[in-house]
């Protein structure tokens, strides 16, 4: 004997013409015997018949014309959207260019000025060292006439070396530390700020989906 739950499931298949003949016979036999399922089946079939016999109604007059009138009011809006979209892309490109140029320009200026300053200092230091070297040669020629003079000269050399090291350290402190061979100076700061702004704009643009 078929269960009522199965019968209800098959009623829907029957409504959709998806129930095979053998199961259809089983369902009908169950409906004959079960009063509740018979009532359900009759109601479902009457609903089905009513719904299936629904006629389509014609469109009210002027429906299409009203629709097209409403739509034709909108192309301007669509063009505006396109214009805003293009404007947004142009703004992003301009930002990229401007910030890259400013950044690169600043980088080059700082690098060249750093090199100039450091090389000038190095040049003056080497001149001092050369001078002390000449003094040494003169002392050799005089066959160490005065040993106390020689000691004084060595002390002078050591103090000059210390001065050059402290000057190099000072230059490094002034122009920042080397990280991956790139200095964090003004140029890179501008590039970084510009980059953050551009990423922000891009995210905003994607989210707006203009």
């Amino acid at each position, binding site marked *: 004997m078929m269960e009522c739950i199965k019968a*209800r*499931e098959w009623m*829907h298949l029957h*409504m*959709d013409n998806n129930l095979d003949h053998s199961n259809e016979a089983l369902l009908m036999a169950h409906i004959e015997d079960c009063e509740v399922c018979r*009532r*359900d089946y009759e*109601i*479902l079939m*009457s*609903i*089905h018949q*009513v*719904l*299936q*016999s*629904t*006629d*389509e*109604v*014609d*469109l*009210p007059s002027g*429906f*299409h014309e*009203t*629709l*097209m009138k*409403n*739509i*034709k009011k*909108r*192309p301007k809006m*669509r*063009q505006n959207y396109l214009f805003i979209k293009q404007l947004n892309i142009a703004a992003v490109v301009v930002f990229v260019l401007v910030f890259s140029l400013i950044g690169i320009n600043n980088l080059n200026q700082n690098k060249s000025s750093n090199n100039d300053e450091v090389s000038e200092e190095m040049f003056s230091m080497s001149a001092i060292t050369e001078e002390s070297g000449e003094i040494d040669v003169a002392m050799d020629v005089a066959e160490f006439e005065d040993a106390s003079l020689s000691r004084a000269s060595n002390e002078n050399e050591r103090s000059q070396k210390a001065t050059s090291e402290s000057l190099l350290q000072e230059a490094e402190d002034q122009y920042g530390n080397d990280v991956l061979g790139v200095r964090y100076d003004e140029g890179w700061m501008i590039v970084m700020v510009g980059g953050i702004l551009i990423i922000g704009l891009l995210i905003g643009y994607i989210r707006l989906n203009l």
Partner: protein
Amino acid sequence: MSDKSEHKLIKNAVNGDSKAFEKLILPYEKKVYNIAMQMFKNEQDAYDASQEVLIKVYNNLDKFKFESAFSTWLHRLAMNTCIDEYRKRKRHMEHTTTMEVRVSSDEESITRQFVDHNLTPEQEVLQKETVSEVRHAMDQLKEDQKILIIYRDIYGYSYDEIAKMLECNLGTTKSRISRARQALKDIIIKKREQTAS
């Protein structure tokens, strides 16, 4: 209309060609209006809702990704818009009686829509009663169940098509439609029991 020519019309319409949009939408207008008519049961609301659906189609056409059939995408919009508009009107109806008046004024035309004209006068009277019973039960269904009955049992869309519109699997779609039918049947049984007592 072939898929290829439909796709061409969509692309042209997206680029602002309103004539292309007109050609594209014309075959669907009557169907959308009829679905809205079944949903709202009055001409004014059906008119407004179907216009709303078709305007939404125009405004969102650039979001159509050609991953499904255009008709599926359009009916998904129609389903969602009809449900939203129905909810809005239902909320509004709770405060006013306007909808009730409108529904009763259109009742005759809706009943005429359902009735089979090849019946004897007695059968016609009986069927009018059944039609009225089913119609009132439909009005009491939840909006998401109502739209499923409209698509499946009134307009005969396949389970597969409805599943694509709903963006859910076939099994879920079948069980949702079965539940909607069961709910419709239960409303009728309840009504009959109330009348009998």
